[in-house]
């Protein structure tokens, strides 16, 4: 279970998160919606442990462990996964090698045996097939020359292989065509279960038709201003953020 209490954080001295309170119980999927620049990606970076994002107050725990004192790789070892809004290109790093290194690092951390190249390829091919990704995406350099949608699928591929216990998906739906959206949503739904939680950041109600969330939160100006059931997404669609922000003020 993820528990965030009174979390404040600054970037370059500028306060972006102004007191976030949020609980995602184990097994639940929560959505975060909110205007551009409201701090959604900042929250996901702070949870993943990005340098330069300075926590000035509050706490974030995962299964009772203090997340904020851990290195990014230690958070990953606990089962945290962030699908980046803007996946990073790694020229000179083959995607298959990258995925296998990540998977084996994760398996090591969990006390599982590492996979050799053959075992890994079998697994990776099965997952790429499920995500309707062409095989050659394993051979190419990580995200280099990938289209916007291909990058997002590659994030979901990583999630599928690493099997995190808490996935933060930062606008993974942006840039996806209609079929890809469905495939990606299926990928997330396939992970759902009693030991998997997710924080799905999105601007679009459409994604939430495929991944039906347990709760929806609205983040504006560095704070959660409303929380509710899936119907909150519909209300937003009708009112827009401006209306809701005005109401909350």
């Amino acid at each position, binding site marked *: 279970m993820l528990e965030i209490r009174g979390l404040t954080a600054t970037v370059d001295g500028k306060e972006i998160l102004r007191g976030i309170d949020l609980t995602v119980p184990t097994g639940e999927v929560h959505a975060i919606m909110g205007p551009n620049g409201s701090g959604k990606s900042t929250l996901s970076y702070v949870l*993943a442990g990005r340098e330069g994002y300075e926590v000035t107050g509050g706490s974030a725990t995962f299964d009772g462990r203090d997340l904020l004192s851990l290195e*990014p790789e230690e958070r990953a070892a606990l089962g945290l996964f962030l699908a980046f809004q803007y996946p990073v290109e790694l*020229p*000179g790093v083959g995607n298959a090698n990258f995925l296998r*290194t990540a998977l084996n*690092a994760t398996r090591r951390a969990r006390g599982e045996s590492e996979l050799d190249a053959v075992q890994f390829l079998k697994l990776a091919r099965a997952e790429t097939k499920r995500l309707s990704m062409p095989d050659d995406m394993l051979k190419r350099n990580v995200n280099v020359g990938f289209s916007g949608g291909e990058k997002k699928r590659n994030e979901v591929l990583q999630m599928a292989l690493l099997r995190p216990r808490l996935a933060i998906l930062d606008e993974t739906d942006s840039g996806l065509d209609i079929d890809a959206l469905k495939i990606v949503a299926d990928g997330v739904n396939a992970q759902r279960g009693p030991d998997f939680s997710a924080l799905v950041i999105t601007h679009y109600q459409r994604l939430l038709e495929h991944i039906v969330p347990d709760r929806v939160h609205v983040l504006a100006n560095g704070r959660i201003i409303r929380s509710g059931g899936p119907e909150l997404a519909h209300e937003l669609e009708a009112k827009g953020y401006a209306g809701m922000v005005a109401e909350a003020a």
Partner: protein
Amino acid sequence: MNVALKREELPKGEQGFLARFEGLRGRLPGDRAVRDAAAAAFREAGLPTLRDEAWKYTNLRQVAETSFSEPLTEFADCAPLLARLPALDGSRLVFMDGRFRPDLSTVPAHARVATFAEQPDFGALARPDRHPLVALNTMLAEDGVIVEVPAGVDAGLLQLISLAADAHGRPVAFHPRHAIRLAPDARLVLLEMSVGEGGYLHNPVTEIEVGEGATLLHVRLQDEGRVCRTEIHARLTGPHGIVHLNGAQLLGGRQHSDFTTVVAHDAPHCASRQTVKNVLAGRSRGVFQGRIEVARVAQKTDGYQMNQALLLSPEAEVDSKPELEIFADDVKCSHGATVGELDPEQLFYLRTRGIPEPEARSILVRAFLAEALDLIDNEPVRDVLDRLVESWWEKQAA
């Protein structure tokens, strides 16, 4: 000892090298006049000092104050150094402290190979009067390899491996002299790997000739000891020749490495390509000097040179000095240089995938260097880089 050396005025290192020359003079292979001229040039110039811009940060005083021991011919153990390199199929020529080791070598089937010791050949391109360390090499070269690929022959992949270590703590210096010659329409992929440990001076000079329609792909990988200076002269002698001279160097501690190349385009429609990558940690210093000379007849020359450095420490330094000397009017020549650090965003991305920081750094270092090897289309060659970076990384962490 010759009194004319004015030994009391010479610092130890120079005196030592000159004394060594005097001692070996009657026994060194090759043209004695060439040796004497080189010795005169070396005596005149002396070793580079801290006043020489390119050597400012290297404590060459260490070299200057050292009397180098004879390279020992009886090295008990090359195995730990060889173990840093994966065993690749095909032919390889192995040198230990500058001496050819037939017992560790497999001579290529499709090329003629001779050693400098048997068939001394100074070539015509390296100029002892231009650099004191070339003079030093010409004066003291004892061994090296001469590879000739006959016309129309594809000699495949040849590894040129140089292993080096000091003599149980005592410094050694060695000055191999190599020549690589490709007859018309010949082809060779030359993978040169230099690894070593300790306080030694490695000072190889290589001369390359590429004939009409011939192609040489040369990649030099190094993880060396204290001081290394490599000078390569390549000459394109006939139309439509292609030469690639790539390099990937790993430097750390107080190492100094100078990689100097001169590519002479003496015929039209030739291409030369260089991608040189340096990774520098600690207080190391890397120098790349690349010169392209295009003769008046060498129209339609295509020359490209790129030097990129990755600085892993604020105290490391890199110097890049490209030079173009062009006498033809219809040519395409370009050069560029970049210096950067590891990208924190890429590091973060890798770490969020559970990859520990040291491993993430190592992945990015390998990715940076990989481009220098891309032209060799051979999967096992990739392992070379992985292994080299891995052992280098362990040394840096130690």
